[in-house]
């Protein structure tokens, strides 16, 4: 028994060292900007760079639009498939898993070929079009997580009974969807939303190949040209990931609590 405990603690210890060391090193490096002493100069420099604010807010806005459109697309689809077309579930699930099979770089490569300036739908010609492509790309990448989260939340409610009850009270389709279904799967939407947010804000490949002024390409640009700002940015990114995960944990706990109360 003691041997088992010893090996368990050893494994945990090795893990902690492997996980903490790069973070500690990054933090230490980010403090080295002023010669001979530790300071937060690198962070000051990051926050005073106006491209930081502009690219970051651009990425946040894109992520929020992705979440809104994604929820409006996924929730009715998951609802409809459960209610009216259960025979299509395997197909829809398969499609939502495809983005795990096709890497993001391949998907965006396809966009650039299908929707370039000489194609039938020249989306890359205008800023709006390119932004739309980026949003659709983010939606595609988050599809497996968003669909799974919403579908799991929908499993705990009886869609058919809710719909019949609402219909017999004279509710229209929009009322059913937005007043009955959405509130009931909100926790699923939220946990899907945080994952989407975490994916979209830091994403490099897609915005970079679409030439969008997003946070990911900005990070890479700083990484290529500066010494002390990149570790500071890495610490900021790590803190943001941490916040997203904590929010996901809170919402899944709420979801479990709601399912248990029912």
């Amino acid at each position, binding site marked *: 028994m003691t041997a088992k405990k010893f090996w368990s603690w050893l494994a945990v210890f090795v893990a902690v060292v492997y996980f903490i060391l790069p973070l500690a090193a*990054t933090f230490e*490096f980010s403090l080295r900007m002023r010669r001979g002493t530790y300071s937060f100069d690198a962070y000051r420099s990051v926050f005073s760079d106006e491209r930081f604010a502009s690219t970051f807010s651009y990425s946040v806005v894109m992520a929020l639009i992705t979440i809104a459109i994604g929820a409006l697309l996924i929730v009715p689809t998951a609802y409809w498939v459960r209610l009216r077309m259960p025979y299509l579930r395997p197909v829809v699930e398969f499609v939502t898993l495809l983005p*795990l099979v096709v*890497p993001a770089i391949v998907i965006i490569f396809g966009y650039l070929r299908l929707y370039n300036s000489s194609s039938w739908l020249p989306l890359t010609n205008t800023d709006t079009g390119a932004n739309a492509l980026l949003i659709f790309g983010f939606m595609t990448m988050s599809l497996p997580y968003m669909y799974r989260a919403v579908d799991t939340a929908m499993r705990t409610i009886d869609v058919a009974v809710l719909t019949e009850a609402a219909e017999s009270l004279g509710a229209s389709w929009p009322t059913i969807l937005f007043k009955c279904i959405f509130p009931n799967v909100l926790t699923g939407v939220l946990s899907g939303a945080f994952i989407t947010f975490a994916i979209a804000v830091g*994403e*490099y490949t897609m915005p970079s190949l679409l030439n969008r002024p997003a946070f990911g390409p900005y990070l890479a640009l700083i990484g290529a040209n500066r010494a002390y700002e990149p570790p500071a940015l890495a610490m900021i990114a790590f803190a943001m990931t941490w916040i997203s995960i904590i929010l996901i944990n809170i919402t899944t706990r709420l979801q479990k609590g709601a399912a248990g109360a029912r």
Partner: protein
Amino acid sequence: MAATQPLLNRRLITDWLGIAPFAIFAIMFLIAPTVYLVSGAFLDPNGNLTLRNLIDLFQPNILAAYVISIKISAASALGGAIIGFAIAAAISLGSLPSWVRSAMLTFCGVASNFAGVPLAFAFLATLGRLGLVTIILRDVFGFNLYATGFNLLSFLGLTLTYMYFQIPLMVLIITPALDGLKREWSEAASILGASPWQYWRMVVIPILWPSVFGTLLLLFANAFGAVATAVALTGSSLNIVPIVLFAQIRGDVLHNPNLGYAVAFGMVVITGISNFIYIWLRMRAERWQK
């Protein structure tokens, strides 16, 4: 019969209308782009069917990129799986305090999502020429890491970096499988006189191997498709498939668009096969988790 037919059709039409937005989205932004590239891999510039592009994948430059990509992905998946399994076993079966388990799982959730460009920065600050670990090894232990030929922008460096998100991913996926090992099984085995080794060999491994092997494939595909970390870490100095494809999309460095499609097709084939086997194995494994 004639009277019910139109009714049925109307219902069918509303059914399909309800799913139309999703279908259109999926076709336009997921299926069509993939099909376009995959079919492009089998066409020559004039639009005739050919296998030339796929054969051209075996030219030394591209083949080398695939080989090093597969090596890095396999090494980081294997290393991540072994270390991740040890950690998962420790927190699941090691009778450690429960806070260790929940702290480790939360941290793994964060670390498995900590990828891309920031991860590259973190490892440059750790094992780069001026990184903390490099400096400590040099000043405290008198060991010059870079004199041994180590380079972060290499097979070993990239593998170590990828393992930072591979290990936590393994922990997150395999811990539930380990939790699914019922205590009764080990008790039953020991009552029947099995040694711990026999219990592992004849009960645990047959139950867990689909999960472990499946996750290994998932980690492999995960590393194979990772672009941002590699680009940010190495620029374009390391010849791996995602970087080749990235450069090809940027400016047709292969001087043959259809060969570019073939490179993309090769990526989809490799991540596709590993993911399909993963999903199939996971369905097998879930039989034991109910």
